[in-house]
């Protein structure tokens, strides 16, 4: 009888964990990177070799926008306009509208349709830079509780699968702080279900986190390089609808 009670208790505890509202957890986690639906984010990418020596550095301005549409139309859609700001890439732009992507190279003034695979090009893929939320693109379950992070803390372990094909990672194993649901770490899997990158999230105030200040990505596919994605500045900004027209890429939007 005692065994039966223990088993029932364990099962109930497990059910309690699994029954947590995953969409609500993801929305809570998203708030640490996207405090508003429509943002302008200044991002710096620093890539380090496996031995820790600096490899390269890039700057980006990201306009991340949420397009609200009905479930019939596919639900809410991420829209991101990424402007490359570093000397080596100045003038390049990438536009992401849900699963659709365009690239503009400086000089050509001709927007070019690209595939999701072409979007992956580069150490820090454009998807890593432009994607700052999970709630709209992933569904899954809470698989259990772990200890994770530095300093170690109680975490919820979520197994997530993409709900649309255009996302950079088709599967994510995500660990959130149990108390505040801030992102702590993630394993990111590409289409072929290979582990592509492992991510760690750096919070502004570890004891009482309010925002992610950096994301550290370790490449697991090829070169074991580490990419540091630092969020230098964030502000709420809704851009005109025309800016998200692929043909508008040939124009120069005002950054403020």
């Amino acid at each position, binding site marked *: 009888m005692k065994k039966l009670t223990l088993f029932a208790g364990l099962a109930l505890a497990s059910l309690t964990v699994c029954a947590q509202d995953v969409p609500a957890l993801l929305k809570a986690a998203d708030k640490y990177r996207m405090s508003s639906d429509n943002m302008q984010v200044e991002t710096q990418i620093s890539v380090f070799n496996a031995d820790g020596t600096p490899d*390269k*550095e890039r700057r980006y301005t990201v306009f991340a926008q949420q397009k609200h549409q009905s479930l019939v139309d596919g639900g809410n859609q991420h829209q991101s306009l990424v402007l490359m700001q*570093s*000397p*080596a890439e*100045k*003038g390049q732009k990438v536009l992401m*509208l849900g*699963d*659709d*992507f365009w690239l503009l*190279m*400086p*000089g*050509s*003034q*001709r927007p070019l*349709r*690209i*595939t*999701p*695979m*072409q979007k*992956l*090009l*580069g*150490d820090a893929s454009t998807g890593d830079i432009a994607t700052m939320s999970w709630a709209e693109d992933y569904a899954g379950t809470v698989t259990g509780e772990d200890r994770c992070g530095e300093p170690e803390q109680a975490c919820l372990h979520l197994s997530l699968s993409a709900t649309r*094909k255009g996302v950079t990672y088709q599967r994510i194993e995500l660990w959130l702080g149990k108390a505040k649901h801030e992102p702590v770490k993630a394993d990111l899997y*590409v*289409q*072929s279900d*290979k582990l592509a990158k492992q991510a760690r999230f750096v919070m502004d105030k570890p004891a009482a986190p309010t925002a992610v200040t950096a994301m550290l990505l370790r490449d697991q*596919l*090829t*070169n074991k390089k580490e990419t540091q994605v630092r969020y230098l500045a964030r502000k709420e900004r809704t851009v005109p*609808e*025309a800016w*998200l*027209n*692929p*043909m*508008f890429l*040939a*124009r*120069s*939007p*005002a*950054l*403020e």
Partner: protein
Amino acid sequence: MRFAAVALALTAASSACMGQGAPEFSGQVRPQWFDQQANAAGPLAQATGLQPGIAPLPASYGAVETELRATGHGLGFIGTLQQQRREGDRLRSHAWVNELYGSHEAAAWQFSAGKKIVGWDVGYAFRPNDVVEQEVRRTLLSVTPEGRPLLMAEHFDASTAWSFVLVNPTKPRGQIGADEPALAARVYQRDGSVDWHGFARVGAHTGPSIGAALAWVASESVELHASLRLLAHADTLVSDASGATLARTNPWTPARTGNAAQALAGATWTNEAQLSLLAEAWWDGSALSDAQWDDWNARNRGLAALIGSPAPMAAVAGNLAWQASAFNASTNLRRANLFARLSWQFEKWQPAVDVLLTPADRGRVVTGSLGWQGDRVRVDAGLRLYGGPAEALLAQVPARRIGYVAATWSF
């Protein structure tokens, strides 16, 4: 240039008060070396063999190009300074304005005036509907093209864009190619994974043309594109000389083609390892026909047969040199063309190899290249080889081999 300055002045006043962001400046400096080997075959080689110096042959050269860019307050500028020294020549400097324009928004329309790059169409190696800029394709190094003088009105909403362009408005009606005054329009419609484009153009002397294009992302890794243009006329060159008749002046003179069609179909495939394959096939009905090229080859043979005859060798050499004019008759030498490009992005390195084939005469151009991209410096090197059977056009063009190396410092 004068048009660009006037148009700029007109828009500058209205744009300056719009507060369109702080001015931004950037640019690049690119030292480069091109090693060109002149072809030992073809009419130009035969001409210079008979009479050295009768026509310039491809020569190796070194150059430094400095490009400056500035945008802000509704104005845009790109300028280039080039210092070049060809083998056996002195250092020469050239400067040109790639873009100088003003933009202004009014009543949900975007207006631009000045000299501007306006690139249209969906292809890589050939763009039949690039009717405004008419950019040179398959260059060895990525270069910023020189924009066209124009007045442009554009309207954008979430998924549709309209563009109306009056290009070369102040140039004489008789100008040819990309300098021809023309009115052009484009409509763009986004439909999920498909981009649709419609084009129309009325040239001052080439008349109307209409076109359509689409780009479709068919899967995670495959993109398909196609483009079609139907045109009333195109600028070309025709020869009124045949056989071995010696002409007194260049027999290749400007002319207009009749109705013609241009069409392209292509696909790109990219995998997770960042390996990418591009394949395109196109038809250019404005290029010289196979029959015209047969006549050209026959005349070359006839003129070559005069070598050693009592005919004046200077006249034979001149006529052979004029035969090379045919290479400038249109964008493509042959009407049917096939192109493939394989490239790989591996960390900072990008090796690539591409080949252009002309099935009509089995001519080919093979290009291999290697690029390296650092934080501020990019290094490019490559080699292009022209070849094919003896009577293939690509085996008779002025250059046989072009090697290059360039370093680009961006700021």
